[in-house]
């Protein structure tokens, strides 16, 4: 309600600014005239001569010039009689009284949000409670870590939340800080690798792979690191290696490990002939696939990769993988057209273009 009161007050002030001069009948000739300036200039010459700034003869010449202009100005001064056109004044007053408020309020309502109050930060942080959205809590933790960047525990807590929120780049930074300040561990390394892979759109990049390898170096049996190392092998086209890694993982895994089905499905994906006997439904389904179905499944994966690269063409490794896949499937034309697209996609980035050309050399695509 106060808002509308303030609006009304402001509108009245604006209307008043227009109506006030209309109501006053200033009969006295306001404003200066040309002749006044010349008279001032003549006076100024007298002062300059008195101060010795200009010589007498120059002063005389200047006086002659200015007087000539003064006469001309006085001649041409056809003093307009101060007329008052009542009709126009009334029209202006009506515009101010009616048009101005209507136009202003209509225009404002189409843009503004009068129903929203103010949200100064001070009053909001005070009312913060457990029900506030997760974003706000994350922001508070981030603010805390901004001030205490060496709080390893804080980073450890924050990192998985960031990863779940989809802020992968921030999660990567948070995991790195957690490793720096809370100590290195296989879990942290593999989480970091996972965040890196997520940030790259699911591709296990060389950087991510390095993290998983570090994790495995500390704990050879870590399921996450091993799974992703297998995935990296699969994405590189080394299916046998992938299958070997995953089989090793399954062999050591406890029977009730929750991630068993995932690994088994992955094994089925790479078409591992020696998939373990104990299989769940998904596994069975994959096993029952005939050659055609399996081919369709692979083709589906390749198509998904191609679509993703169309949307985001920065990923040189992805392009190389796609071309390799086409080559394996014997579709040379598609590989060649993928190469053209890839070159266009990274054309603006010389570093990536160089990487691409290096990779293509090994493909035997020729050109």
């Amino acid at each position, binding site marked *: 309600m106060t808002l509308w009161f303030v609006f009304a007050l402001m509108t009245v002030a604006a209307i008043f600014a227009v109506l006030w001069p209309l109501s006053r009948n200033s009969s006295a000739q*306001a404003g200066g005239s040309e002749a006044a*300036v010349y008279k001032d200039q003549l006076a100024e010459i007298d002062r300059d001569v008195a101060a010795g700034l200009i010589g007498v003869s*120059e002063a005389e010449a200047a006086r002659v010039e200015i007087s000539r202009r003064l006469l001309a100005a006085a001649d041409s001064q056809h003093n307009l009689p101060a007329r008052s056109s009542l009709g126009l004044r009334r029209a202006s007053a009506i515009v101010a009284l009616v048009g101005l408020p209507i136009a202003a309020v209509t225009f404002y309502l189409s843009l503004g*949000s009068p129903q929203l109050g103010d949200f100064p930060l001070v009053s909001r942080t005070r009312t913060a409670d457990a029900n506030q959205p997760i*974003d706000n809590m994350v922001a508070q933790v*981030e603010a805390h870590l901004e001030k205490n960047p060496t709080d390893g525990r804080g980073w450890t807590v924050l990192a998985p939340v960031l990863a779940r929120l989809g802020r992968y780049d921030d999660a990567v930074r948070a995991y790195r800080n957690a490793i720096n300040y809370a100590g290195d561990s296989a879990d942290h390394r593999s989480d970091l690798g996972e965040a890196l892979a997520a940030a790259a759109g699911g591709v296990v990049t060389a950087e991510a792979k390095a993290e998983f390898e570090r994790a495995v170096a500390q704990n050879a049996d870590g399921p996450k690191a091993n799974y992703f190392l297998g995935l990296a092998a699969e994405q590189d086209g080394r299916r046998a290696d992938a299958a070997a890694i995953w089989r090793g993982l399954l062999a050591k895994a406890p029977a009730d490990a929750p991630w068993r089905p995932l690994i088994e499905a992955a094994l089925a994906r790479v078409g591992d002939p020696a998939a373990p006997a104990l299989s769940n439904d998904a596994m069975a389904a994959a096993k029952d696939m005939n050659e055609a179905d399996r081919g369709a499944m692979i083709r589906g994966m390749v198509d998904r990769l191609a679509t993703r690269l169309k949307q985001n063409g920065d990923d040189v490794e992805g392009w190389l993988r796609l071309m390799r896949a086409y080559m394996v499937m014997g579709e040379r034309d598609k590989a060649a057209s993928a190469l053209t697209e890839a070159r266009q996609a990274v054309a603006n980035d010389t570093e990536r273009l160089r990487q691409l050309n290096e990779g293509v050399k090994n493909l035997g695509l020729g050109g």
Partner: protein
Amino acid sequence: MIAEAGHYALVLALALALIQSTVPMLGARWGDQALMNVARSTALAQLLFAGASFTALTMLHVTSDFSVVNVFENSHSMKPLLYKITGVWGNHEGSMLLWVLILALFGGLVAAFGNNLPLSLRAHVLAVQGWIAAAFYLFILVTSNPFLRIASPPIEGRDLNPVLQDIGLAVHPPMLYLGYVGFSISFSFAVAALIEGRIDAAWARWVRPWTLVAWIFLTLGIAMGSYWAYYELGWGGWWFWDPVENASLMPWLAGTALLHSAVVMEKRNALKVWTILLSILTFSLSLLGTFLVRSGVLTSVHAFATDPARGVFILLILCLFIGGSLLLYAWRASTLKQGGLFAPISREGALVLNNLFLTTACATVFIGTLYPLALEVVTGDKISVGAPFFNLTFGPLFVPLLAAMPFGPMLAWKRGDLLGAAQRLTAAGIAALIVIAVLWAWTFGGATFAPLAIGLAVFVVAGAVSDLAERVGLFRIPLTIAVARARGLPRATWGTAFAHAGIGIALIGIVCETTWNTEYIGSMKPDHVAKVAGYQLKLDGVTQRQGPNFREMIAQFTVSRDGETLEVMTPSKRDFTTRGSSTTEAALLTRGASQLYVSLGETNAEGAIAVRIYHKPLVLLIWWGPVLMAFGGLLSLSDRRLRVGAPKPAKAARALQPAE
């Protein structure tokens, strides 16, 4: 409520600007005083509402109200208070709001202090201001509204671009805008004169001080921006011929020409058509600058956001005002009464020459800036026009201009004596020759042009000094009388001398910095010593520090010369987490007018840090020059006398030399 009240105030300002742009015009047409006076009260009320709107946005930024999109996108609760305030104009929407606030301020000043203007002239001027204001209010409200809200506000903002979190930003944009927008007054006066079909002495008496105010601020704004680029961007460069810099240089060149012809017009009633044309051109170039910077045509620090709708809208405003005013000029300029006559060799003639050189220089910058853009639009080719082009075109135009500059003030009004002026400049010429000879001998085998350029600069400075000496009769009359005369000299004369000397001083700085700059670029480990221009810089160590909203890596250098320790320099690199970007904070050691400049690069794997060290001789003169020029302008502005140019009588009287 603050946000919505600010929003509504902006809408009311638009409504008032629309009334201000129509009612007074009708009043002037029908000779109704009350209607003409509406211009005055609406201009003042418009200033009030624009001010309220800007205050509201500032309060929202200070209280970190993230329910406002503009605050959310450009602020952060942990920013220091100063940067919360400067962040108001550190973004597109807020800076446009500052733009219209300054426009309203100038309109309000004309309304408040324009009592001695003819009534119809004042009404027309304020109406034209109203058109400009209405166009920009509409632009802000429709395409870049700073008061848009978020229904469920986030708890933290996205922070201001770290490069802009600097004291330079607190000062540079308001200064520059005061300059840009200040030229709107002379534009409005010019358009009003064209509409009225007459231009008189009161007109000229008003235009000069307003142009001077705008010019002072623009000079300081450009110098400030250049110094900011020098210390904040970490490359030690102070002018890049970047399109955004050119966008501010063009109005400055045209505005300098305008300033000079406005003086002629006030004093001698001549160069009327020049003054009108330059008024239109100067403000048009200011608008063009706004378009280039704000439309996203160029990507730079200044292009906060790119949105085609904004570009198209500003382009429309641009076409409307520039096209409209030039059409009006073509149609009406011939009806203006011609002013006083003068011989080619006279002070007026010298100023026409000055105008020609400045506008041509402005045209070369214009071509160099817009040609690549036009080419890209037409053929899609990207070319960049850089320093070589401008050095080859702008340079040759400025050399004769500077060489001729000391002669101008020496010539008498109406008919001058070139030989006499040359005689009086003998001392300055000799000084310049001596400097050239000494420099040549000293830097034998070095740069050829540098001593010549410095000689030219010395000639300019010495010319300004000998003009003063000539006027007070130094060495011709007893010293006490000369001092008394110097004290009695009009401040405008002192102002001219300071401003002209400022150009020479800046030129010395530019030549020295570009010719004798020495640099060291390499990576250093703790306890390494770098030697630059006789200074030894020892890297003591690197430490980390936590700032309010950034982390900082500080390197400490001990600077010594000839075994004597001078000072400790601490360049740093700041990482801003929220934006995920970093800035380099260069460390500067000032010795006289020269500076030692250290900035940090990346740390490599072995713990060595990339360091750039420059020794820049006399670099500070580059900015002292413009400051001196602005000071000269201020002196001239403070001189409240009327300007009368006494002509040299046809039959010369031998007794006295013309002094003014």
